[in-house]
């Protein structure tokens, strides 16, 4: 296949208009918008708390849970994914309290979970496309029930996040002082892991395990490059996540390709752009060394 041919296959909008009128496509867009909303809202704290790797681990174990559920019944995939994600989130949330061993434990558990998930898929007698969709995502995977589950969970996650936002931000940026001020730092760490688990569990059956990172981390990492205001970062990350997901779904329609490639590409372009903008901002803002106020005469 020539390069031109490849590009033509990947970048086509022939028939996109008709496809957008289809029910399942619209369901996928709604699901994607809801996912981007939660991911964008949680992302900045994931980046601030340096738990990207734990999110990755959670998404792999979510895949394991979904694959196990697929063996029982294909209608249980969402439930299996949520269970897998919550188990992973609780394990990592409790482990996260001991920062030093966190990395290696996540790595060990993640590899085991991925291997186990692979075995489950091999045991699965059904169509291969179901298997692939758990890893790379496929929008036909979104049923009406999934969309309702997604909507309810998204509302729950956002509500809880709004209720704990201030102390959670405090604990994330400034754990020692937050603890000294009476913020329940450990409890919030576990709660946050559960919120991330719910988001991941919802995302895996729709966008696939590999894509979770590009929704939860890339938009927030991009936002962190252009603003230091935590609330602006929250809004920007949500906007970036929406653009990546909705843009990715629409772009994947005509070629009929898995959406993950499109979503990750858009997210990555946004990230690179924000990095460049941030570098320019920084150069402009670089000021002479801060001066001390006049020292009193000694």
């Amino acid at each position: 296949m020539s390069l031109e041919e490849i590009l033509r296959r990947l970048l086509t909008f022939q028939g996109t208009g008709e496809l957008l009128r289809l029910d399942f496509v619209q369901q996928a867009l709604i699901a994607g918008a809801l996912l981007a909303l939660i991911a964008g809202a949680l992302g900045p704290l994931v980046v601030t708390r340096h738990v990207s790797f734990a999110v990755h681990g959670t998404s792999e174990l979510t895949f394991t849970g979904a694959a196990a559920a697929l063996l029982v019944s294909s209608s249980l995939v969402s439930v299996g994914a949520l269970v897998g994600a919550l188990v992973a989130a609780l394990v990592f949330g409790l482990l996260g309290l001991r920062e030093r061993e966190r990395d290696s434990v996540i790595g060990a558990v993640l590899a085991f979970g991925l291997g186990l998930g692979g075995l489950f898929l091999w045991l699965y007698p059904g169509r291969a496309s179901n298997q692939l969709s758990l890893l790379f995502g496929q929008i036909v995977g979104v049923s009406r029930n999934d969309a309702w589950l997604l909507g309810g969970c998204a509302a729950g996650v956002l509500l809880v996040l709004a209720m704990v936002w201030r102390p959670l931000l405090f604990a994330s940026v400034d754990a020692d002082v937050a603890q000294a001020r009476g913020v329940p730092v450990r409890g919030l760490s576990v709660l946050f892991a559960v919120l991330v688990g719910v988001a991941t569990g919802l995302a895996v059956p729709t966008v696939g395990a590999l894509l979770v990172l590009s929704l939860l981390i890339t938009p927030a990492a991009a936002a962190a490059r252009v603003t230091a205001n935590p609330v602006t970062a929250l809004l920007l990350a949500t906007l970036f996540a929406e653009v990546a997901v909705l843009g990715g779904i629409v772009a994947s329609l005509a070629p009929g390709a898995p959406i993950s490639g499109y979503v990750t590409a858009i997210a990555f372009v946004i990230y690179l752009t924000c990095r460049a903008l941030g570098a320019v901002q920084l150069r402009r803002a670089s000021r002479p060394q801060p001066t001390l106020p006049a020292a009193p005469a000694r």
Partner: protein
Amino acid sequence: MTTRTDHTPARIPARVSAPPAVRLSGARLAYGPRVLWDSLDLDIAPGELLALLGPNGSGKTSLLRVLLGLQPLSAGSVAIRGQPVRRGNRTVGYIPQQRALDPTLTLRGRDLVGLGLDGHRWGFGLPSARRRARVLEALDAVGARHYADAPVGLLSGGEQQRLRVAQALVGDPDVLLCDEPLLSLDLAYQQLVSELIDARRRTAHTAVLFVTHDINPVLPAVDRVLYLVDGSFRIGTPDEVMNSATLSQLYGTDVEVIKVRGRLLVIGTPGNPHQ
């Protein structure tokens, strides 16, 4: 010594003797068989600045944790303004050591100070003019207003530590706990930060407990010293504690304290070459 013995039972508290800002009575802290300190009686008056010195592992930070309500005493009692200590006491401010912050941290100086005001409260925290004004006032008090919108991770250690002072003072505390706030700052900023803390307790009568490994940057402001070494301690004015005889007795070895140009040099403390 385990409990406070009331010599004057049912005494009506007189108006003239307001409760001390901090009171430790017969306080003991032990981790298993290891006793950090025992029979510690200490009153800190409003507006008093007490320096807490001692080698690593002598229980300085643990004492702060006790006052923050994060660490229960093994025996004895502890009160802040006559009330038992509890977590998240609004009348206690806390300044930590300066630590390098992530340069990409999405947080501005005004956010850091704002978290000191209401970061412990639940909810999203909608912006209000009153909150904004209090944060700006705290920023002004430490001369940090002009960099209030810069990312905290890009500020120098001294600039960050001024924000820490503002963060601790914005809640208007009666007791200020400082855990080595001057560590890793250069001399000019050490002096500036200790002056800010000194000014606060003079104007607002805030009691200050100042943990430090080097007394010199705060020496002019210190009222009393609590020196902890291996389970024993001395309390007194700097002159009473920071002398060769007292420290030699505390450490159980020959320690010499020399005064050079207003600075105290402590020589011969085991395992603490920096002094």
